[in-house]
């Protein structure tokens, strides 16, 4: 195995000619495949193309932390698109042996392998990462570089870690099956759901999938299971009030509303409620958002969203739901279905259910927290039901906008 292949397999970036990436990749893989059967043999696997756009180094670092886990669960060809605010620091990259005389190009390219050992004694499974860097202002060049690099016949995902109104996004999205967004990521202005809704309405975007939504999977499943109980289903036409609480951020800072709003939007859309307005009182962590709805029968209904300020910090990522309580309207208002996490055991939720005529004993269901790597791996691995998400989003976006 030559030294370029050895660096490539060990995870070091190897600089390649941006106009000849496939050939250079082939020459880097070849010595590894020639070793097949020998002690250095590796398996090259690829289930999908994962294109990732990074507006800056912070997002890049975040992705670098979670990608090894994603690749272990779901090996992909990863195509990183990077915008370099400080010029192109090509000198940091290793030139590929013999292939390094990069022709002058305004983009810079490097490749590296990501390998993981499925089990002791089994050859490592590797996939490749291609990184394209553009100078700030020259990002449009990235758009034209993606299509030729996609492995044919397998799905293409675009994980967009930047602004969802970036004009580059629809350009790249036309080659893509699903755009991955994150409704939890609100540090830039706090109103990300309307942007996600805008994105999902673009003709170039086939489907939007959301890490925050996927993170609500266990909540949705638990609520659905509660309503498998015929007695709970009888309550559905009577439900008129919803309370959702979320985990606080440190220092009393406001925390992402994305997941609470989506959970509320999902419950409301499943119940056939239509958004009718909102009122906001209080500020920061003390904010209470009251959302008004009309039910299918034209009756008023409402939801209130707030931060649970007395919840111990750090036991659950800020912004994640802690409570969902669906209650009946008068005169049966003591009937409710409730799922709540308490600070003592944050990996489980207490579920309770009571109607005027019957009371189920409270139960506990595990509500494990999934890492972002696990959520992303799930998104890559499983089909989605886009209309359920879209309907939830339609209601959630005006709630926060």
């Amino acid at each position, binding site marked *: 195995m030559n030294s370029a292949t050895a660096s490539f397999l060990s995870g070091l970036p190897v600089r390649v000619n941006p106009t000849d990436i496939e050939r250079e990749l082939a020459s880097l893989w070849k010595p590894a495949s020639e070793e097949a059967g020998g002690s250095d043999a590796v398996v090259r696997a690829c289930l999908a193309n994962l294109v990732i756009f990074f507006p800056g180094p912070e997002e890049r670092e975040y992705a670098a932390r979670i990608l090894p886990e994603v690749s272990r669960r779901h090996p992909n060809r990863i195509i990183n698109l990077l915008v370099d605010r400080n010029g192109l620091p090509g000198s940091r990259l290793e030139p590929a042996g013999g292939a390094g005389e990069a022709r002058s190009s305004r983009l810079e390219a490097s490749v590296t392998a990501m390998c993981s050992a499925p089990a002791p004694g089994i050859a490592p*499974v590797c996939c490749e990462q291609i990184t394209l860097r553009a100078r700030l202002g020259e990002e449009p060049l990235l758009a034209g570089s993606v299509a030729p690099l996609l492995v044919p016949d397998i799905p293409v995902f675009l994980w967009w870690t930047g602004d969802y109104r970036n004009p580059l996004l629809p350009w790249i999205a036309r080659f893509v099956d699903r755009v991955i967004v994150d409704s939890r990521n609100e540090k830039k202005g706090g109103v990300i759901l309307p942007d996600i809704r805008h994105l999902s309405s673009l003709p170039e975007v086939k489907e939007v999938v959301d890490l925050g939504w996927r993170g609500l999977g266990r909540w949705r499943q638990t609520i*659905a299971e509660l309503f498998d109980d015929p007695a709970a289903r*009888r309550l559905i036409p009577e439900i008129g009030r919803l309370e959702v609480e979320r985990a606080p951020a440190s220092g009393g800072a406001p925390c992402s509303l994305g997941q609470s709003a989506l959970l509320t939007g999902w419950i409301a859309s*499943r119940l056939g409620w239509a958004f009718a307005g909102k009122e906001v009182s209080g500020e920061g962590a003390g904010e209470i958002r009251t959302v008004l709805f009309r039910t299918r029968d034209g009756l008023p209904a409402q939801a209130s969203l707030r931060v649970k300020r007395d919840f111990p910090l750090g036991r659950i990522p800020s912004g994640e739901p802690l409570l969902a309580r669906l209650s009946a309207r008068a005169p049966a208002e003591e009937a409710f279905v409730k799922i709540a996490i308490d600070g003592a055991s944050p990996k489980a939720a207490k579920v309770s259910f009571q109607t005027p005529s*019957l009371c189920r*004993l409270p*139960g506990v269901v595990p509500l494990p927290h999934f890492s972002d790597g696990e959520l992303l791996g799930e998104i890559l691995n499983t089909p989605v039901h886009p209309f359920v998400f879209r309907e939830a989003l339609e209601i959630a976006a005006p709630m926060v906008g």
Partner: protein
Amino acid sequence: MADSPSPTIAVPPPTALPAGRPAALPENPFAEGIRNRRVVEPCVIVLFGATGDLTHRKLLPALYNLARDGLLPQHVAIVGLARREKTDESFRQDLIEGLKRSSRSFSEADPLWQRFKSAIFYHPASFEESLGYRVLGERLERLDKELGTEGNRLFYLATGPEYFSPIVRLLGEAGLARPQEGPNSGAGPAAPAGPPGSRKRPWVRVVVEKPFGRDLPSAIGLNRELLAVLEESQIYRIDHYLGKETVQNILAFRFSNGIFEPLWNHKYIDHVQITVAEDLGVGSRGPYYDSSGALRDMVQNHMLQLLALVAMEPPVSMEADAVRDEKVKVLRALRPMTPEEVLRSAIRGQYAAGSILGEPVRAYRDEDRVPKDSATPTYVALRLHIDNWRWAGVPFYLRHGKRLPRRATEIAIQFHTPPMRLFGEASAPAASPNVLILNIQPDEGISLCFGSKVPGPDVRIRQVKMDFRYGHSFGVASPDAYERLLLDAIAGDSTLFTRRDEVEYAWKFVNPLLETWAAEGSRGLHFYPAGTWGPESADRLFEGAGGHWRRM
């Protein structure tokens, strides 16, 4: 899973719901778009044989993993039953070793274990005494009230087969085998009656371990005895092979890909080989194994199930009976073997001393508590035929043995060779046909062998292999078969359990082999050195048809 028991609960006084409420029960609107949804109702799981190996090594770890993944019902209790005197607490303590060994991510300090163990109980009783069942019944009713388990029962018979029938009979006599008559709102006395539709009749299901009978008459007898007390829909006969992901994947592979099914018949397939090879011997199970042997232990159940999945027609749906109907048709179409046919188309062997991976291995007859003159086969090879339109003239070769060179289970579909040798003599080695291999274990995957031109000016064709490995593409470990099967039984899905007729048709096919070999004794028993691929006489099965056992 239940929280710590809270026997009484304050219930608000009944309030009338507004008039005009629709009478029909609304659909569950939240269910839409939820993946892998199965309705699991509250229940008590009673494990008969709770101090045994299966409970400790497989069942409890599987239940714990299900609880960890949030797949068990919210209200569940586990009651272990065996003779040994134990308290709830000492039983819980005894389970820890097995959980540490077998459950992914078990830790005693985990709050999950603290909650899980609070729903585990022990009930000392003998399988054969009716008093114990009455006391059990009372205890289960108390648990219903304390934990909200709603009268639903899953009885798991992790016991020796001699107890299957007595336990079910005594369950019946104690009134535990049939769902209680009348409604059950599930919350015990604290709960006043709910509106119609909020009540359901509880269910009772019985999971029966293997072996299900030791020949056709005993299987028919056992079925008769179970069905005297239970409905067929209450009986879940375990074949843990069906719980394996890769076995289920046979159906996914066949029926979710358009390209294979058109080729899946006698026009394109030359023959099928199914191999279940084990490198282990009988270990400490000598007496049990000696009374059973390779045919009963592996072929009648697991291998015939693999055969049925490979050979069945597409079912009309994936519902339990639709799938099982098609499997039964395959088993019914197996060409019965006359005693002469048994001698021609079946080979049995027994391992002699040898070595595996450099370690000397003793002969079967020298294993602990195995008779020195035992004629029990540890190896079986069969050639059989399925007499239906699809498989006319296609032989199926089955082989299974202990102390073979390595552990491997695979199904190999060998296609016909091309009708003419276009590449002449140069392609001679490539006359080796296409083979599609479904690897079941240990290295789960699918491979296709095909001919390819060797680069160069001359025409040389050689076989190459295209490999797909689950482990390479899906970096997530498959759950243990018992997790899937327990969850299915709790959810009332019997697709992966064998139905009465399935078991009986499988025994019907195997019975002439058992009878002929019993009559022959040691005559015709072939010995093979441990660490080899079985007796050479097994190659005889390919005579006339061409082909050979695959080198694995």
